[in-house]
């Protein structure tokens, strides 16, 4: 799966990052640029189509996905700061476009999709220098990054380069946080039970920051943390998308102080 170090790459920012976590997107772009990659951000990108796809509305999902297909014509890698959206484009576009006139195009796009941490480690072989103060972090790898994109260990391998970052491993690390897109809304009780356990396990590590490569998980876990802080006055870790965390560490930004 590894490719030659490219001179340029497309960046697909995801709808969640666009609206809620633009810092993560900006950091991801800056990390890529720092590696000498010319980043191309097609402005017409909206959403990969996953919300409708996972709800069973395939025609609606395809229509949105088709709009994205048109944006990545050059034979360049497409880097996505989310295991979930990358998983959608890489593993589900082929099924979504099976038998459609633009199936070939979908397969071509799917074949060029990379999740950000996988791209940083495997393709760019990024080298990081830690400029921050000592800090402890817990890592939550999203289920899609782990199981669809097969990049389960990439965050740890990136953090391993940071001299003053200590990773604390939470119990039930590989278990889902309970987000699951519409699952959190359609099955709120089960989702709540899952995120309650997830936050408890992370907090038990005493880590001051939680990092993940997926903003869906961060929205879920971080939202629960903020709730626990507000309603129960509990001390909770800060949350950071891995791109933002890395960018801050190599530039002595907020996360680098341990204050996150």
């Amino acid at each position, binding site marked *: 799966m590894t490719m030659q170090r490219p001179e340029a790459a497309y960046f697909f920012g995801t709808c969640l990052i666009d609206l809620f976590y633009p810092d993560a997107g900006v950091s991801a772009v800056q990390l890529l640029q720092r590696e000498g990659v010319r980043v191309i951000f097609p402005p017409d990108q909206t959403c990969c189509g996953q919300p409708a796809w996972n709800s069973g509305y395939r025609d609606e999902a395809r229509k949105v996905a088709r709009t994205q297909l048109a944006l990545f014509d050059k034979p360049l890698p497409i880097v996505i700061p989310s295991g979930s959206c990358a998983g959608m484009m890489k593993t589900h576009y082929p099924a979504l476009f099976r038998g459609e006139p633009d199936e070939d195009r979908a397969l071509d796009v799917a074949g060029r999709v990379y999740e950000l941490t996988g791209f940083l480690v495997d393709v760019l072989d990024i080298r990081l220098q830690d400029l921050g103060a000592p800090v402890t972090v817990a890592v939550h790898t999203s289920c899609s990054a782990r199981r669809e994109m097969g990049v389960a260990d990439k965050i740890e391998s990136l953090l391993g380069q940071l001299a003053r970052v200590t990773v604390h491993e939470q119990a039930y690390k590989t278990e889902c946080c309970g987000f699951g897109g519409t699952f959190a809304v359609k099955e709120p009780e089960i*989702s709540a039970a899952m995120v309650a356990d997830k936050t408890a396990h992370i907090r038990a590590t005493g880590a001051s920051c939680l990092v993940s490569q997926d903003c869906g998980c961060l929205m879920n876990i971080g*939202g*629960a943390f903020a709730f626990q802080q507000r309603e129960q006055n509990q001390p909770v870790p800060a949350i950071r998308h891995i791109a933002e965390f890395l960018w801050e560490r190599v530039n002595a930004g907020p996360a680098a102080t341990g204050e996150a």
Partner: protein
Amino acid sequence: MAMPTEFRIRVEDALKKDEVRTHFRKAMDTLMTNRRNQFPDEAELQRLRTQAQSIRANALSKLPELLEQLESNLVRNGVQVHWAETTDEANRIVLNILQQHNARSIIKGKSMVSEEMGLNHFLEQQGIEALESDLGEFIIQLDGETPSHIIMPAIHKNKEEIARLFNARFPHIPYTDDVDELTRNARAILRDKFYSAPVGLSGVNFAVAETGTLCLVENEGNGRMATTVPPVHIAVTGIEKVVEKLADIPPLFSILPRSATGQPVTTYFNMISGPRKPGEKDGPTEVHLVLLDNGRSTIYSDPELLATLRCIRCGACINHCPVYVRIGGHAYGTVYPGPIGTILEPQKEGLRVHGELVQASSLCGACGEVCPVRIPIPDIINRLRHDGVRQDGGSRTRDAGTRRKRLEAVTWRGWSWAASHPSLYHLGSRAATRLRKLMPQRLGAWTRVRTAPALAAQTLHERLKALGVDHE
């Protein structure tokens, strides 16, 4: 707000029982650890899974021929073969056999297909006693319950509960909560029943077409007793359980117990190849096999859903499911719980009754990751969600299209339209960020345990444009 469904009520109920949840968590932890320890070599595990998958896929690719071959070889071996399209037919076939022998009772080895048939209940109505002899099944039968797991039916009960139950049902036996002691007591009670039962009933794990052999995997020896001691043995199974040849058995038997309970092998592996032959000293004089369809042919006819039938009922998907571990098996309200139930039950019984189950998944993929025959469970869940709302008539899944709700459909159509018109979409997202102060702080169920997500001041699109990132 709409009325809570039965499923929702059961889920909420289950989630309230902290003790049960802790118990389930411990039990599943043990099973997961045991499984992991059985597969120390990741590459070897993947090789075994691929092999098991291809054996099952191969069998399904020739299912009609293999079933014919199985039947003719069984008949040659002296086994009587019966075909049942529905569970009702299957029950009547069993009843007929019992009536021919004037049997008023049967003793049962563990069989999920008999649960699917509702056989115990059916026989009871005919005045026939069906006694479960698998320890777990025996326990839940004492308590009038159904299995909460396909291989560990009484997993929801802790030993104190079981001790109290035994004490209530068998007051003449001194109270004990020692597991070995309890097992010994159950064994003593059952032993007599084995000798007096006129008919034994069992399930089948694999049916070998090439030789006409029925394989039964078990740990307690009750399966062997039920299939050899009573003069008549009836095996019931689904039509998908057939495999092509005897050589297919070792790889499947190697991966099944390791995936299921984390045992290298089970204590018993029975190969039944017909009734007692002249001159033989033991074994039943009559053996029957009931092959049940119950919706399986419909599943078979869909190339995407067909993988559902590869299942070897190991239960690994259940043991690893973050939803199952929290709500337990009974909350599903189905015969098969957990991920396998989530894909099988809506297909078998229809989306109208069990379509809700396919929503009760975060699509985390833990199930598909451990499935020994690589059933893409999340993909099948996704497909069944589609079948629930589609209107194109392109699926044979029972009750396809019946879960479509107008408001939801309209919402997705609107979303789809907006997200495929970039300039409009971006106008909207920019506007949303400008108006973010107006965003509601309470978002229904989401904010019951979380704060509402905060919209950013500027979208990523705006930020990257300002930074001069190439927008070609």
